[in-house]
């Protein structure tokens, strides 16, 4: 990026002009085409990724100390609560076991196994988060050399986290579904009604994301319903759990519904994620 040394020095107005033109060209080029500054980012990654890893570890140690102190009281109270819950869950578990046997039988019956294939996954660590307060991108420590490509889906635990938006050799940037600019085509698991799940900066502080364009003619969708990725999405694999419906209400057009959902993933404490190495078919032509 630095200019070659010459005998005369450019005045700052010219430098500003040159850089401005350069940036505007870059914005248009990267916005309108699929060209990315991959190699440049690769160079930057070689320097920064090891540093980020190290500092991140220090940061998480410090935060876990402070967490420990503040959490001790909460943990004691929680312990009591959990003991009660254990009893409750034991009974619930018995019922679920019965349900599982039934499910297995039904799956065999309908050969639904094909619908939920075992994807190849690779684990990755979150090593950096967006530098500002506006967006919820983060950087993971696996890149193209570990087989990661753009548009691969990222999950954590059981739920969807987001998708990879750019890759260099040893790191990749992930756009999370709670980001304000993220939209996911989804469906309600029980009724297969389609909807759009989009992140929102406003709802983020309540740990929710918004649902819109939900067609629910029979009024069946209630709070607690599971929302999964839809098979019509062109970037997300079908059937990945996104979260649970919080509340829905009728839109002013009386045709569709919108509302909020609670994501299945705890985005505030995201440390390890899984990247699904299978791309949705049809995206590569």
């Amino acid at each position: 990026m630095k200019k070659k040394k010459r005998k005369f020095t450019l005045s700052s107005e010219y430098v500003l002009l040159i850089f401005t033109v350069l940036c505007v060209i870059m914005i248009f080029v990267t916005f309108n085409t699929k060209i990315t500054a991959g190699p440049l980012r690769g160079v930057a990654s070689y320097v920064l990724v090891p540093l980020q890893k190290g500092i991140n570890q220090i940061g998480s140690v410090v935060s876990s100390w402070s967490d420990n102190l503040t959490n001790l009281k909460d943990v004691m109270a929680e312990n009591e609560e959990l003991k009660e819950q254990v009893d409750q869950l034991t009974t619930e578990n018995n019922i679920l076991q019965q349900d599982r046997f039934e499910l297995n039988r039904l799956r065999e019956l309908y050969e639904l196994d094909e619908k939920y294939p075992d994807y190849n996954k690779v684990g990755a660590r979150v090593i950096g988060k967006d530098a500002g307060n506006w967006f919820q991108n983060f950087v993971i420590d696996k890149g193209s050399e570990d087989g990661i490509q753009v548009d691969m889906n990222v999950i954590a635990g059981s739920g969807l986290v987001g998708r990879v938006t750019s890759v260099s050799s040893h790191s990749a940037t992930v756009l999370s579904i709670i980001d304000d600019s993220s939209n996911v085509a989804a469906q309600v698991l029980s009724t297969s009604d389609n909807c759009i799940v989009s992140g929102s900066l406003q709802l983020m502080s309540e740990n929710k994301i918004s649902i819109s364009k939900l067609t629910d003619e029979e009024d069946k969708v209630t709070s607690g319903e599971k929302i999964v990725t839809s098979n019509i999405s062109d970037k997300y694999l079908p059937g990945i759990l996104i979260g649970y419906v919080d509340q829905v209400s009728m839109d002013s057009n009386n045709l569709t519904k919108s509302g909020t959902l609670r994501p299945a993933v705890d985005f505030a404490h995201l440390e390890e994620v899984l990247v699904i190495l299978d791309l949705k078919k049809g995206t590569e032509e």
Partner: protein
Amino acid sequence: MSSSMKRKITIFILIIICFLLQCTVFKAVIFTHVVPNLLIVVTSSFGFMRGKKEGLYVGFFCGMLIDLFFCEFYGFYTLIYMYIGYINGFFKNMFYDDDIKLPMVLITGSDFIYGCIIYVFSFLLRGRFDTWYYFKNVIFPEVIYTVVITLIFYRIIRRINRKLEEDEKRSAAKFV
């Protein structure tokens, strides 16, 4: 090592450290959602301490780092940071080394304008019209955090700059 080379390397390291702090440690340690914007402090400081040109270069580099790691189309942040550095350069003549008021005003202003630009271009243009919400919950908290951090951090930057300027004077004297 020549003193101008020393300056470049020092600033380079300073920016890298700020970038790393901003996207790793602060996010983990601070409990709120808000992170102070150290890169704006650096860009703005070198703008009014050293003039338009150096502000421009520092801003360019800060913005480029963010673009490379977090932006989907490259150049957007570079452009913003570069102009912030450049505009701060206009205040060089009003800047006195011991005065803390002007730096505080300029850094606060820069961070506020930075927040507004991001809001307009990446939220307002996508139809997020609840302006007051974003001001109250993102822009103002960020500005306040940045100001608090600046009270300490600006002194560090000023000390670094003084050291560098002393070096430059000494090496200039040697040649004369």
